[in-house]
């Protein structure tokens, strides 16, 4: 099945463009120290708010830091944070969903009521409140996003687990004397994980928007961390004198989100029937 998806994706021009952009950004993130001309944290008050020039291709910010270097390092921060948030959401969502589906009964009921309540909140509002109360930092933002984000995944996983757990091979594993945890980890999760990975990829653009948006509000990465949302927030005060400060970080956010959306759309098209089947449950 995986091969089929890759073949389908290769035919989708937009998805290919998305993958290429993501690879370029990953390259930027990994090799940021070698690619940037300046230290992104280095303050140089003599060079503040310079417009783009040969020495500083994207200009400098209000503290004279090189904007291009900050943007390159920002790729690292934003992509690392989004990946981390997605992974944590997946781990929590999958574990909780698998427990609910596998054990059923009271456990399932209890978990599903919590899911219902969390779904009754506009999730970002709750994320904002939790992140704000834990105290503004990138790590706390990721914790807050995990606390509200796992529900959707749990619901999907629970549904798939319910249908898998009655299959013969689970019965066989149990007959062989495998424990519950072993069965969940070794037999159930590998069987239900692929739709979750796909949904996580589709959600990636949205996750990046949330992280940069909340950092923009001052609830995520704190200065002087070169994070795109926080950079936009810094730059907005100098809108009239130095518009480049708010144009380039925003452009980067849009390009990343666009790339993930292209890929996500391609994935959705490639697997539509199966995905729809899973979502309907």
């Amino acid at each position, binding site marked *: 099945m995986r091969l089929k998806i890759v073949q389908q994706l290769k035919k989708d021009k937009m998805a290919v463009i998305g993958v290429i952009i993501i690879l370029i950004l990953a390259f930027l993130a990994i090799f940021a120290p070698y690619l940037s001309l300046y230290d992104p944290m280095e303050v140089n008050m003599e060079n503040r708010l310079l417009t783009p020039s040969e020495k500083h291709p994207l200009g400098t910010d209000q503290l004279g830091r090189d904007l291009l270097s900050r943007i390159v390092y920002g790729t690292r921060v934003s992509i690392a944070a989004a990946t981390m948030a997605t992974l944590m959401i997946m781990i929590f969502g999958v574990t909780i969903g698998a427990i609910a589906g596998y054990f059923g009964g009271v456990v399932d009921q209890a978990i599903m009521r919590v899911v*219902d309540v969390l779904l*009754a909140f506009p999730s970002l509002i709750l994320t904002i409140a939790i992140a704000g109360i*834990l105290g503004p930092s990138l790590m706390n933002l990721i914790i807050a996003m995990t606390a509200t984000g796992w529900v959707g995944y749990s619901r999907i996983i629970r549904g798939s687990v319910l249908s898998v757990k009655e299959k013969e091979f689970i019965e066989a594993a149990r007959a062989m004397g495998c424990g519950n945890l072993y069965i969940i980890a070794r037999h159930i999760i590998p069987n239900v994980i692929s739709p979750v990975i796909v949904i996580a990829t589709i959600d990636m653009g949205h996750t990046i928007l949330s992280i940069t948006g909340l950092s923009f509000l001052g609830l995520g990465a704190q200065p002087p961390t070169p994070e795109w949302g926080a950079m936009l927030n810094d730059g907005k005060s100098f809108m009239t004198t130095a518009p480049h400060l708010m144009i380039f970080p925003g452009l980067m956010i849009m390009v990343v989100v666009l790339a993930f959306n292209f890929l996500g759309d391609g994935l959705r098209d490639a697997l539509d029937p199966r995905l729809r089947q899973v979502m309907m449950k």
Partner: protein
Amino acid sequence: MKKYITKRLLLLIPIMLGASVLSFSILYIAPGDPAELMLERQLQGAPTKEQIDAFKEEHGLNDPIPIQFARWLYKILRGDLGTSLRTEEPVLKEYLNRFPASLVLFLLSQIISITIAIPLGIISAVKHNSKVDHFSRFMAMFGASMPNFWLGLLLILFFAVYLDWLPAFGYGGITHIILPAIALGVSGCASIMRLMRASLLEVLHLDYIRTARAKGLCEKLIIVKHALKNALIPVVTVIGLHISHLISSMVIVEAIFAWPGVGRFLIESIHARDFPVIQGFVLIIAMFFVFANLIVDISYTYLDPRIRYEMERIK
């Protein structure tokens, strides 16, 4: 139908109870002692041990948590959400003062999304694979990927700073609302347009449309009178689903445009660690969202007789 609505309303009770537990517990996930944090704010300095003890005694913070929760719930049911530490006004009053501004923005941005998205979606579907179709799909992709806070800043930069046509922020006449409403409306526009297109394309392949064509009806009539009715149903759901996203985006957009709404006050309160306001606002916003969803669900059953029959059969 009445049974369905009653059932939905009854289902709201456990959800609301859960939502209030969640809002209540916000205070307890804060690192540090909530009493100390609140006193620090009130006294503008570090409180003494005696002051903290007195404050705890006064507000019943020494009682077991279930009792504190019961007391909180009892107060909420009577419409008392506590007092803001920052403005010293009742939380409910602060909310109601700001709600109209937010509602106007919410409705206008929704209107902008719908009036742009639905016609574009229809044209895209009718002129399937044409240049117009490609263009509007591209724009939709663009709109969905545009961070609304960046769009807001760009709008300010262009229309307020360079052209000086519209005020950059604040509240007042019609001119003040245009930019924030556009910044909010664009992302919704994209998803509604895409769904409208997909849904109309699907309907246009159905047999009854072929029958209408065979009958010799003109294409316009087929689309407006026959196809749209069915194609709009999933669009209504998406508009409903989008409310959550819209409420969340409003916090950001209100902050950028200094719009005196609920969202901006919430963010200010979060930065100021004004716990009663955070708890109260989160709870009211959740309630608003739950009711908005209920209304969408009910109107959905009105729009689609098939669902209505289905429900009557299940009973």
